[in-house]
């Protein structure tokens, strides 16, 4: 297990190196001079050339890249061109909200998705099953901003149970988390349902039932653990994506997470922040995947890592 983790961590470094090349090229291939963009159209030519020197834009591309990677692996993501703050500090200031939001949404998605999916599978081809399938389809296909505005309208504006926007503590995150969680719950429900349907037909399920165990117990102790593996993969992937920033939802709810930070950075062409964010997101994604893989072995002892 330990060897496996080390191996995975090493390959992570390789992945991050690849990502660093992509990020670097991405930012440098976008047209437009960042120095002019930062200083505005009325900046003096000397101020612009000073800024170009400060950004290292006057050096050959390969030198710029080496410096960029060197800093990256030394843990220095650079300094924001607009705010003058360290990119790492900016991300860390914003990350707690996104992290809370991601955890809450995944919990909501997991609870509703697994519950509904299991019920639908057990009650296959009944009206309950069809309702669940329909509801999950709605959850998947309704646009996030629409759900968000609908929830704000009902629960924040009409009923005044929550703030409309902004962050005042964890209860401010409930509506955005539901917004994100609903769409994912739909996907989780469908996946749980089909996975569970396969498991239900297995011999060991029939055996357990034949031995007189209650249906509830059979599903819970024999069915679910076997059906849940693809669901965990899905949850893990979604969690990674959520941590990397729920851009739309953070914008609608005016939440200061890393999704909104990314949007701000891109609109202002704040190169170091964009680069740092993408790098950070890649790291989060890779780590989440690793954790998901490790969770497998705990759920299903047949999966070994050597």
């Amino acid at each position, binding site marked *: 297990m330990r060897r496996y983790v080390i191996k995975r961590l090493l390959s992570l470094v390789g992945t991050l190196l690849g990502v660093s090349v992509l990020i670097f090229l991405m930012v440098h291939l976008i047209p437009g001079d960042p120095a002019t963009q930062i200083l505005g159209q*009325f900046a003096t030519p000397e101020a612009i050339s000073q800024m170009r020197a400060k950004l290292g834009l006057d050096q050959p591309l390969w030198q710029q890249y080496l410096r960029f990677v060197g800093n990256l692996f030394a843990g220095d993501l650079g300094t924001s061109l607009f705010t003058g703050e360290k990119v790492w500090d900016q991300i860390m*200031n914003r990350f707690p909200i996104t*992290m809370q939001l991601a955890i809450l949404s995944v919990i909501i998605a997991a609870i509703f998705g697994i519950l509904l999916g299991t019920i639908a599978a057990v009650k296959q081809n009944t009206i309950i099953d069809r309702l669940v399938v329909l509801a999950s389809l709605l959850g998947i296909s309704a646009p996030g901003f629409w759900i968000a505005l609908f929830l704000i309208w009902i629960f924040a504006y009409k009923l005044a149970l929550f703030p409309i926007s902004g962050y005042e503590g964890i209860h401010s995150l409930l509506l955005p988390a539901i917004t994100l969680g609903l769409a994912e719950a739909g996907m989780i429900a469908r996946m749980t349902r089909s996975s569970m349907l396969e498991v239900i037909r297995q011999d060991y399920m029939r055996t357990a039932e034949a031995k007189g165990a209650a249906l509830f117990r059979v599903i819970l102790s024999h069915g679910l653990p076997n059906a849940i593996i693809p669901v965990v993969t899905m949850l893990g992937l979604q969690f990674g994506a959520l941590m990397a920033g729920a851009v739309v939802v953070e914008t609608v709810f005016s939440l200061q997470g890393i999704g909104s930070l990314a949007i701000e950075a891109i609109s202002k062409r704040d190169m170091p922040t964009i680069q740092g964010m993408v790098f950070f997101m890649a790291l989060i994604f890779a780590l989440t995947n690793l954790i998901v893989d490790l969770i497998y072995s705990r759920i299903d002892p047949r999966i070994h890592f050597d």
Partner: protein
Amino acid sequence: MKIHKWKQGAMSVFVATALIAGCSSQPTNQTGNDTAAKGNTLVIASLTDPDSLDMHKTSWLSMENSLIYEPLLTRDATGKLHPGLAEKYEISQDGKVWTFILRKDVRYHSGDPMTAASVKDSFDRLLAISPVKGLAGPIEKVEATDEHTLKVHFSQPFAPFVNVIVGGLVSPLDAKKAKELGDGFADNPSATGPIIFDKRERGASLTYKKNPDYNWGPEYAANKGPLQFDSMMFRFMKDDDTRLMEFKKGTVHVLYDAPPNSVAELETLPGVKIEKVMDIGNKYIALNNKHPLFSDVRLRKAVALSVDRDPLVQVALNGFGKPVYGPLAPTIYGYSEAIESKAKQLYTRDLGKARQLLAEAGWTDSNGDGIVDKDGKPLSVEMLVSQEPAFQRAVQILQSQLKEAGIDMKISVQEMTTIKERISKKSYDMALMYYGWFDADILYLIFEKSNSTSRTHYNNPELDVLLNKGRLEMNEQSRLKIYEEAQEILVNDLPWVPLWVSETVIATRGVKGFTVNPYTQGITLHDVTLEK
């Protein structure tokens, strides 16, 4: 016992959430709507968080980051010049030395008195670090001749300086504090304004509290003393629907940049007032005058004559704007009604005349497809436009209007940075652009040959002479006359096609006396009161 492990997993996620929630760096009640609307706090919903509160480092002074700074001279809502931090000013015979007599009762937020020496230090800092110091003109040196007398020496006369002052670029900041704090000044700025920086949640909110010692309000304000509310907060919200709901719920007093299509609904709400403030600049079609097509003045004019500005304003802007035909918006110093009406007469839509000009240039519709052609090639041009919604709507109207004149216009949506880059490389036909400035000197910044900000690559020595003269002429009447001549050239030769001047729409509720000055583009806070 696999289930137990799963439960454990779920538990640890809960614990993690609780932990993160506990140690989150986000203070509660920062953006709290309850605290905000009930207390004696003026709450303004605003679109963008400024980059820096240090006015010498910001890329643009906006209401969010300029309110703590006060200009030496100011204008009232009718455009009339008034004393600000300077009681009076005087310009030497040769126009090179500006002398300011400063008020004696002004203190910075740090408690230090504002003296000529401190204002000099502020100027020196600006000249040392501001990327836009060029806008302040050819300043040679600044000296404090006594405790309250400041002299600004120019290497040559610079007439636009008065409007540079009004615009706030050279407003004094607390240079001693700036020196002490270095980069940290942006997080703890100090100046002379009626509000004092309080706290900032990047991207979420910006809070100021009132300056209790303030007693030097401008002449045109009824209240010269401290503000009549305790604090003010900008809340940054990007999503239009969210901003609207916050305003309707009553959690913000002022909805800045109200979405134009929501104004009709807002007007029906009890207590809501809608104010419109005209921009200090135009939106225009930048034509590439170096392009083989638009180096021909007949084609430039044909484009102008194909455009009907009224539907642009009515449809693309929901009526919140004014058509303009001449070079300067009415709120810019140097605007001339005579020029505007002449331009209007010349370029009000006339498809017959447009087609005639095209025909004179050799472009006629020989194959009957509705598009004029020459040597078998149709007249097809590309319009660069940014993603801004109003621009997007406008450019589609323009497309159909130009088509009626026989010009095939293709729309190319690009990022503004890309557009600017292509313009500077001269690889474009036309682009939908904008400008904004406090003085007719903007024409120098756009058109004079030494400027890199040209959007049209138009070169006219006669115009250059006038635009340079306009900077040097200290006599106001003569100066305005020079700009009339310069504008006349621009109207006759038409290197660009001015389209409209936008209006910012502001909805307010629960607040009295909230006004925005169109000439300085600043909020006047002095007479603002909150309704309880």
